Each structure stands twice: as C-alpha cells, then as structure tokens.
C-alpha cells in the first residue's frame, strides 16, 4: 500500500513538472511575451521597455526564467493581475467557491441519474430501455453545452419565465433559496453531458462484474436477484467509477467554464474569459496552472480512494 502511494505521489510530481513546462511554453507564446502590457502604454519608449524587461528579469536565459517562475509558483507567488494588481491566487480563490458549487451540484445529479440508468440498461441489456438510453447518451454527448444552455434560457427564462437567466444570486437577496433557484439551470445543463458519460461507463462496468464468477456463486447459493444486484454487483461496479470521476475532472472543469459563460456564473471560467478579454496574462496563466493542479490532485485523490475501498489494490 505504502509503495503504491509513494509511486503515485512520485508520478504526480513528475506530471506537475511537465504541466508547468507546458504552462511556461504557453506563457511565452503570448504576443510580445509578458511585456505586451507595458508596450501598449502611451509614451512608452524602447529604452523604458528594456529597463522593465531588465527589472522583470526577462533578459535572462529562458531556463533560468523558467526555474525562477516555477520556484515562485511553489511558494504561492503566482504574480499580480495586470487589471487591479491583486495577487493571482487571491483572485482565483475568490472565484473558486462558485465553480465548486456548480461542479459539485451537477456532479451529484449526474452521478445519481447516470448510475441508475447505467445499472438498469446493463441488467436489461438489449431492451428498449437499453437502446433508448444508449442512443440518448450519444446524442447528449453531441450537443454543445453552451448551445444547450442558450436553448434552456430561451425555454425556461424567456418563454416560461420559471427560472432566472443568469447570475448566482439576486442582488439584495442572496438567501439559500435564491442561490438554489439560480443554480438549477446551469447545474442541470452541465449535468447533461456527465449523465451520458456516467451511464455509459456504469453500464459497461456493471456488465463486466455481472459476468464474473463470484456473481454466479452468489446466484447459485440462492440469493435473490435483487440482493445479488445491490450487494454484489453494484458495489463492485462503482469502484472503477471513482477513477472515472478523477479522469472526468478536466472535462467537467472545461464544461463548467462554458456553462459559466452562458449563465454569467461568477466562477473560474467566467474569470478566465474576462482575463482573456483584458489581456490579463498572469491570471490566465494562473487559472491554466491552477486547473491542471486541481486535476492532478483530483486524480491522486481518486486513486487513494480506490485503494481505500478496494482491498485487492490495498494488499498488492
């Protein structure tokens, strides 16, 4: 167990290093590099630009700059926003809650519905229910999330007038019920794709477990089909879903970004787009690195959780 944990931890460190390399490469692709912001200032001269470059250490060799940048990242110094001069990590922290709320609620919905659909279509393999949900999942995976959001706004806000078209709360209200009403549409829209993914994987995981020997044994000793399903099959089929949840994190984060834009939800995705619009590169880079680190942590946590619930892995 300890060996396994150390190995996974070590792999995550290597990945973090590679992720930071990619991030640094993207950073240096920015037009004019980190200097572009100052180059636009009226009355800026070539000499003044050179001086700023010197002060920022931009005339040093790239590997040195990279090491410096990475070292600062590790110490929590992620730079300052061009827009208002606040530390990048602080700004991201201010938008984290909204994104986690959106992702959390939509994942909860997606897991509940997706698991249910997956189990039922596996048990009744080849039935009408199985066929309809299979095709339905594939269609759901083909619908652009942002477009589905637009259509939902059109139907439920503009046409029926049931739900607010955007934002996280009404200014001046902000009660839990108010949050909940605002949360319904974006989280369901984001859940659509995840329900599809989740039900597909749950279906194949359930089918896998159903064909194993211990299930035959459980049936042979006369357990009721319901007990076999609930106790023996579902429990085991859920284990690979933990890994899937980790692997789905980048997709989920990306989906949250898109959903946030449509519903003007004040989370990390909204911040990312605003910062792009203002050429606020430190925040853009910060969010890029932050989301990747979040994904690495998520995957590590998923692996640890699998090891905790599945003795077969723990004892290895």
């Amino acid at each position, binding site marked *: 167990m300890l060996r396994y944990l150390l190995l996974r931890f070590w*792999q995550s460190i*290597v*990945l973090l290093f*590679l*992720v930071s*390399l*990619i991030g640094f490469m*993207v950073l240096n*692709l*920015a*037009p004019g590099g980190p200097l572009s912001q100052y180059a636009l200032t009226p009355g800026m001269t070539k000499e003044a630009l050179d001086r700023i470059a010197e002060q920022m250490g931009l005339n040093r060799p790239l590997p040195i700059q990279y090491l410096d940048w990475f070292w600062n990242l590790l110490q929590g110094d992620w730079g300052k926003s061009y827009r208002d001069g606040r530390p990048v990590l602080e700004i991201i922290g201010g938008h984290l809650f909204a994104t986690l709320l959106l992702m959390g609620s939509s994942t909860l919905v997606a897991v509940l519905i997706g698991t249910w659909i997956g189990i039922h279509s596996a048990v009744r393999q080849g039935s009408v229910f199985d066929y309809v949900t299979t*095709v339905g999942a*594939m*269609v759901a*995976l*083909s*619908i*652009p999330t*942002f*477009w*589905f959001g*637009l*259509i939902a*706004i*059109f139907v439920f806000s*503009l046409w029926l007038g049931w739900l607010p078209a955007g934002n996280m709360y009404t200014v001046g209200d902000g009660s839990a019920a108010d949050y909940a009403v605002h949360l319904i549409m974006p989280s369901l829209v984001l859940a659509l794709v995840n329900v599809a993914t989740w039900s597909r994987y749950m279906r194949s995981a359930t089918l896998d477990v159903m064909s194993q020997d211990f299930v035959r044994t459980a049936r042979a000793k006369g357990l009721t089909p319901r007990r076999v399903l609930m106790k023996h099959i579902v429990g085991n089929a859920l284990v690979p879903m933990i890994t899937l949840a980790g692997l789905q994190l*980048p*997709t989920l*984060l*990306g989906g949250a*970004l*898109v959903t946030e*834009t*449509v519903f003007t939800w004040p989370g990390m995705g909204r911040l*990312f*787009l605003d910062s*792009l619009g203002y050429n606020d590169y430190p925040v*853009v*880079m910060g*969010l*890029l690195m932050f*989301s*990747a680190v979040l*994904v*690495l942590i998520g*995957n590590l946590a998923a692996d640890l959780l699998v090891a905790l619930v599945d003795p077969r892995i723990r004892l290895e």
Partner: protein
Amino acid sequence: MTMLTETPLPPPDRWWRSRTMRRFLRNRLAMVGVALIVGLTLACFVGPYLLPFDDLYIDLRARFAPPGTGAHIFGTDPLGRDIAARLFQAGQISLLVGFFAMLMSTVVGTVVGVVAGFRGGWMGAVLMRVVDAFLSFPSIFLLLALAAFIEPSPIMITIIIAVTSWMEVARIVEAEVKSLRDRDFVMAARMLGLPAWQIMFRELLPNVIGPIIVAATLTVARAILLEAYVSFLGYGIQPPLPSWGNMLNGAQQYLDKAPWLAIVPGLAITAAVAGFNFIGDGLRDALDARSDQR
C-alpha cells in the same frame, strides 16, 4: 495468433465485402450517422449554388425574418443576411476545420503512440507522461489561452485544436502496439534485420489501423465541438468568415427576439457531431470481432 501454413491462404476478401463491413452496414445507428454526414456535406458544399442568396447579401427589408419568410428558408440575421446561405458557408469552414484537425492530431498521436509503444523503456515513459500532462489541462482552457495568444486564422485554429486533441489517439495506439510488440511477426521482422522505423510503420501500424480509424472518427466530432466553443466565445474563426460557432456568437443577445438565430446553427453542430459519433461507435462495434457473438 501465429501459425505456419503450408496450404496457400484463401484469396483475401474484398474489404467492402468483409465481415467488418457487413457488421457496419447492418448497424442502423451508424447508417443514420453516414446519412447525416453525407447529407450535411452535400448541403454545405452544393447547397450554396442552389440558394438565391449568397452569404454576404444584405436584405435590409427582411432583417430578423423568421424561418420560412419568402425564400429565406431558415430566416435572416440582424443584418438581413440569409441564414441558410451563411449556415452552408459556415458548414464548409467547420467541417474542414474538423477534418484537418483530425488529420493532424491523428498523425501526431499515431507517431507518438507507435514510437512510445514500440520503444518502451524511458523513451516510452517520457512520451506517455507528456501525454498525461497535456490531458491534465482542461482542453478548453488550453485551447482558449492559445487562441487568444496567437493571431487567429482558420489554419491556426485547426492547428491549435489538433494540439489539444492528439493525446487520446496516442494512448490508444501505444496500448495496442505494446500488446503486439512481442508477437512472432515482429520477432521475424527483427531477425530479418529490418530497421526500426520499418517495423514500426510497415509491420505494426497496419495492425492497429482499426482502433486508429475509430479514434479518428470520434476526433472529428470533438474538433467540431471545440471549434464551435472557441468561435462562440469569439476567439476562433473571425467574422465575416462564418462558422457554426461564431454564428451563435451574436445569437445570445437576440434570444427573445429571434431564437432561430441560436436554434438553427446549434442543430447543425449537433447533427454533425452526432453523425461522427454514431459512425465511430458503429465502427468500433464492427471491428470488435466479439460483437458477432451477441
């Protein structure tokens, strides 16, 4: 499986009469996919010649015309341009971007996968960790950052989409090649003294072509979706060049007044993406020999 045969092998069946092909043709959903893609491609590349308007013609008396107004079958946009004409023109761009992004990412992914799978060792490990690192970024974040930093043109957008979607193919190919690496035919090729690149790309590659085709088909679907996202957010294909994504860009503010502005391009995207997904899924089932037993 390897076997020394003394009797000559039966002449190979033509590929369109093969069992795989028959399984594919029997798959109703895959046929729906083929129909969708053929239909959309025809509409986008032939349609513009059949319409009375071109995509830049401005009909000022018919601004915000709902679908079915006169000859405007899908209505008009806020400037009075014909949506059908723009949709087909946009479809050419979106489908081409999707196709070429698929081509690029499949080539890169295949080369990385074959080399990593065949070489193994530290080289394979490093390559696959790079794949993992790229997969750690939500692709839409990476895509938007790159698109915002680089002067956007259809070619650059295609390249950027390819940069964020080659990893799946690489993973699939690596796993397949790894499982074939120690087979007898590879041993035989080694003993014949063939250079490594010949073993990789002339002996191993033909044996993993099935999974590559499946992944490539699904990558087209993904690329079309990604193009739609970035263009919708304003960082992709730039107007006046229309794409399905940037047609939706202005649609949000007219949602109450002219919902067809949003509905029509979105349906086109969904149809195209679903079409490729159906085909990809059908191909996967058809190539999987076990699916015959079901």
